[in-house]
């Protein structure tokens, strides 16, 4: 099993955090993982992306041209990376920000209204957790319990009150593809 995932969006949308969560959860489940961010001037107000590998074998290259899955949080991301996705791969689109549709017919497209759901659960910042839920539910790669345990671990002390909110967002995301 090897998954190569590109997560891309505007700085501030939480794309890099989705990648870190996937890497953390993969590690917790005993997988070999890497997380490699794009770094450079494009991160200031522009599009930032990261490449994540989850594998049951040691990871060779942490960067790749042909992801198995693409998570596109904004339009430039979809435009940039759609062409490279492996045939039969999946594209997760934040449909509240991206109005374009996936053009290729050999890909599975999932349109997730991340921002709208995040508003509904009470905080626009948790849109990325909605997307993470959709990814986890659709791919079946990682156990939802692992992610939820991680959320408990992530928010402690004065931030512990954010746990139910993030778990709700994660579960709503899962429900989008179930």
């Amino acid at each position: 099993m090897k998954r190569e995932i590109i997560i891309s969006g505007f700085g501030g949308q939480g794309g890099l955090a989705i990648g870190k969560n996937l890497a953390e959860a993969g590690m917790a489940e005993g997988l070999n993982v890497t997380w490699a961010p794009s770094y450079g001037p494009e991160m200031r107000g522009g599009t930032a992306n990261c490449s994540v590998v989850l594998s049951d074998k040691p990871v060779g290259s942490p960067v790749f041209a042909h992801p198995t899955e693409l998570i596109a949080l904004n339009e430039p991301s979809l435009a940039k990376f759609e062409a490279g996705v492996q045939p039969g791969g999946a594209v997760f689109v934040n449909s509240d920000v991206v109005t374009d549709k996936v053009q290729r017919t050999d890909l599975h497209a999932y349109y997730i209204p991340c921002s709208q759901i995040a508003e509904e659960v009470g905080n626009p910042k948790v849109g990325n957790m909605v997307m993470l839920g959709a990814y986890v539910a659709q791919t079946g790669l990682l156990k939802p319990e692992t992610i939820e345990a991680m959320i408990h671990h992530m928010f402690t002390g004065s931030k512990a009150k954010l746990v139910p909110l993030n778990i709700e967002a994660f579960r709503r995301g899962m429900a989008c593809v179930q």
Partner: protein
Amino acid sequence: MEKELWKGNEAIAEAAIRAGCDCFFGYPITPQSEVPEYMSVHLPQHGGVFVQSESEVAAINMVYGAAGSGMRAMTSSSSPGISLKQEGISYIAGAELPCVIVNCMRGGPGLGTIQPGQGDYYQATRGGGNGDYRTLVLAPSNVQETVDFVQEAFDIADQYRNPVMIVCDGLIGQMMEPIEWHPIPKRKLPPKDWAATGRKSREHNNIINSLYMAPEDCDRHNHHLAEKYAAMAKNETRWQEHQCQDAEIVITAYGTPARIALTALEALRAEGVKVGLFRPVTLWPFPERALHNLAAASHVKAFLDVEMSSSGQMLDDVRLAVEGQKPIHYLGHAGGVMPTVEEMVDAAKAALKEVK
């Protein structure tokens, strides 16, 4: 041992603290700024000294001074900043002081780009400073190796009283990967009885210097250094071979391209291509003998050297080691572009086609 997810640069800093680094002197530059950033917060908490110097030149001279007083001293930078440190590195090598220098390489020349590069191979292995000196150069290709090497580097430096360089690249510095903090084998280290710590009741002054006015003295000093470098070459040369036992085409690569090559190996082996990887782990001393012997094996038909450099720098050492026994091909990108798995696969097949 529990695995933890660490970003390369932060892991470098934490590894140095765990190795007993007393002093860190540095100046920010992408893509290594998280090293001084982490150090600025955590080193003082462990009783160490962090100074953000006014320049890279100042930083390396602070390392010179701290190392001369027996402290475990370190600096880190990225390519253009390492260029500025070359004079100091030459002085430190000449004065026989231990220190650890990390170069998180980016593309050059000049300011080049902030993206990953390997164009500093010559500078690291030939010496960017003046005179007959060597630095031991370790080239990790993942975050685990990087933290292991940083910890070991302090011991190697102390053992030989010589600067040790860790060269990684922007990708290793920026990426996150699970690591384990396993104990590093401790070396038996000589006492630092040469350190300039104040004369106290000592019979003589300890003097830290790289200046020898009498040519005979300077000649003697250089021969002493050469003997030390010969011992380092004998004891510290490291490399790794992957699937070389039956390989017809052998990729030579270090750092990030070496780990990209591991994925190329998988793809090529799946197609039935007998491919292997020879990865120098120390760039100086270069694993010349091992590569020479591999080139002599009858099953090896050709080599493919891959670097993040436009026309190849390690390529020179590969040629010196192979000594014309087999053809050597080259694949490289510079300026922040990384060679891809697909390019390596195609280049390996093309190289093999020529000799079959």
